[in-house]
């Protein structure tokens, strides 16, 4: 795998990551097939940057996030954090790495324990990494809350007393509690009002600048991803279809799926003429997909070769890569 354009500060490297979920039927619970949630993903992430991960619902974005955090055990592939492999580690061996990688969730209502005060929720992380005394933890909680723009007195309150945007900030404070280097944002703004979305995005940005955080930013809102990302990966049924720097992917995308996806995004201009044909059909089920390209049954450019051979990520130029052999010459 080639070095990223941004040099050698590689914080996370993922190679050939796979997760297949078995589908069981019958009294004996025999495995009748597999859901290929993540089917061979390669990624490389340099420190302080943001990788945007875009794709339709069910394309494996969230599974990929949970795989990287080792919340789900991968079936194949390797994950390297700062050059050290974390794939085969047991729970105990994984524990020192936990503090470097955190996650922010989509649903601000489900992401905080309703029976714990905000302070207690944030303290959980501090306790897990062993921040000494109660007094130190309390002080750090106040510090973290102020960092995300929530007054310190909120620490004694319960999550149901806060609005969605406030809860999302609290979720961010909890993720920050262990001083992570990498934060996976799993659709952090999808459940929020547009005005609140902007606040949270700006908060994430200023935190990135202040603390040198690296983000994997999962979203289905293409404008949001364009705004926050340095690099963008477009996922479809467990595969990365196109990968590259954000401006390249947004302006010179090659893959027919990228084109369909990006051109389907609404343009805030009622008089804009649009010349795209919507994709036919639905996303096929990830259950036992046919061999070859995953996009074959919806692709306008499909040919016989797409249905047979394994299609890999081809390098276009620099970091820009695309999983389609037909568009390479363009």
């Amino acid at each position, binding site marked *: 795998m080639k070095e990223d354009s941004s040099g050698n500060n590689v914080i996370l490297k993922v190679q050939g990551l796979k997760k297949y979920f078995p589908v069981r039927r019958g009294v004996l619970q025999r495995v009748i097939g597999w859901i290929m949630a993540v089917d061979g993903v390669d990624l490389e992430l340099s420190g302080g940057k943001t990788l945007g991960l875009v794709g339709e619902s069910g394309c494996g974005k969230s599974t990929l996030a949970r795989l990287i955090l080792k919340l789900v055990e991968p079936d194949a592939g390797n994950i390297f954090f700062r050059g050290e492999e974390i794939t085969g580690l047991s729970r105990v061996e994984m524990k020192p790495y936990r503090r470097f990688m*955190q996650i922010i*969730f989509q649903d601000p209502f489900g*992401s905080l324990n309703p029976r714990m005060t905000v302070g207690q929720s944030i303290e959980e992380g501090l306790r897990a990494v062993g921040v000494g005394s109660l007094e130190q933890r309390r002080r750090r909680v106040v510090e973290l809350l102020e960092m995300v723009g929530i007054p310190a007195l909120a620490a004694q309150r319960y999550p149901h007393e806060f609005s969605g945007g406030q809860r999302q900030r609290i979720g961010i404070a909890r993720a920050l509690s*262990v001083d992570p280097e990498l934060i996976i944002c799993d659709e952090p703004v999808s459940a929020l009002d547009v005005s609140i979305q902007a606040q949270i995005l700006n*908060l994430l940005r*200023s935190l990135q600048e202040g603390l040198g955080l690296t983000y994997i930013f999962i979203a289905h809102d293409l404008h949001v991803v364009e705004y926050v990302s340095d690099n963008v990966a477009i996922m479809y049924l467990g595969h990365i279809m196109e990968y590259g720097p954000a401006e390249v992917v947004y302006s010179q995308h090659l893959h027919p799926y990228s084109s369909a996806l990006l051109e389907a995004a609404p343009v805030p201009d009622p008089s804009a003429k649009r010349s795209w044909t919507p994709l036919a059909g639905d996303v096929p089920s990830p259950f036992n997909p046919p061999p070859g390209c995953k996009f074959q049954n919806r692709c306008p450019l499909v040919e016989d070769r797409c249905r047979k051979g394994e299609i890999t990520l081809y390098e276009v130029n620099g970091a820009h890569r695309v999983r389609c052999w037909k568009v390479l010459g363009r």
Partner: protein
Amino acid sequence: MQDSGSEHTLSTEALDLPARQTRLQEFWAQLRKNRLALIGLVIFVLFFIVAVTGMVLTTGTSPQLDSSLVRLQEKLRPPLSRPNLKSLQADEVPVLGIYLLGTDELGRDVFARMLQGAWVSLTVGFVAVGIAVLIGIILGGLSGYYGHSPVRVAQVFIAVLVVLVVTNWSRLSFKTLAVLISITVALAVFLLFSRKKEFGGPLFLLNTQLFSVDMLITGLIDIMLCFPSFFLILTVVALLPASIYNIMIVIGLTSWMGAARFVRAEFLSLREQDFVTAARALGVSDWRIIFRHMVPNAIAPVLVSATIGIAGAILTEAGLSFLGFGVPPPHATWGNILSDGKNYLFDAPWLTIIPGVAILVVVLSFNLFGEGLRDILNPKLRERH
């Protein structure tokens, strides 16, 4: 991004929190709206006070109220009748100077006996349900949290061997014991090192996954539910020495299935919640996730079923005592007062009516409070009142 600072402090000022209301205040406000539940709670508290004072007054070497003092000359006196002071010795005169609830066929003070019985009912109810809830939380929690983990053939062998060794400890010769124990240890060692490796031949068979923990526990629940529990209790009580503790334990051991199912269902949905994932990502231990994050969120339906379960346990105990399988006779329980009283149903109806009404009121109050609790703890049902 310089302007982002101002934007995110702005929301700090806009942060406007509603008046602080603790969970308890909220609970109380909800309870006050629900009349029946409030009545249930009041009766429950009264019952608790009565039972505790009853226990204090009727125990000891010379109790204030002696529930087993026989005054044959004063038998079957109706409630509120005065004792015939001429025929009684000084220490036989009831403390209150009156037979508040009458006397039974042996001239024993029914008031004292009811007080003593209240304590029995209370402890049976709470201890039996406590046992049931404890087993329910443990098994339901295991099934809900670790349900996916498979049970291997080797583990089944180990379980069978351990049961064999423990139950036949004294009967087996030293040689067979040694063989059994060494096989068990060998299997355990095999399990420890076989997690990730592949084996061929018979060793592979040992590593085969038979069923999951979840299937094992839900199967056990279903089997337990198949028994008609009252007859199961009757059988067990008939075999065990009659004692109040045996009754509590037996009732507890036969009524945990509801709690286990509730906890399992709650755990299954909670373990997929984001806050549990967040805790795992933070590196919080399994133990802490279960007891700090999941149990407090899963306890509400268990609490409801426990409250109603107490009523059931009190009824079961009364039924057992009525049938003569309960607490041995000199000790009074509501069930055996009722049972003794039924022979004098027409001559001394208060002997039947008083314990009957007491059981009815207490069981009803627990049921009402339990149902109120369910409405209060379940926000979806809240607005219907």
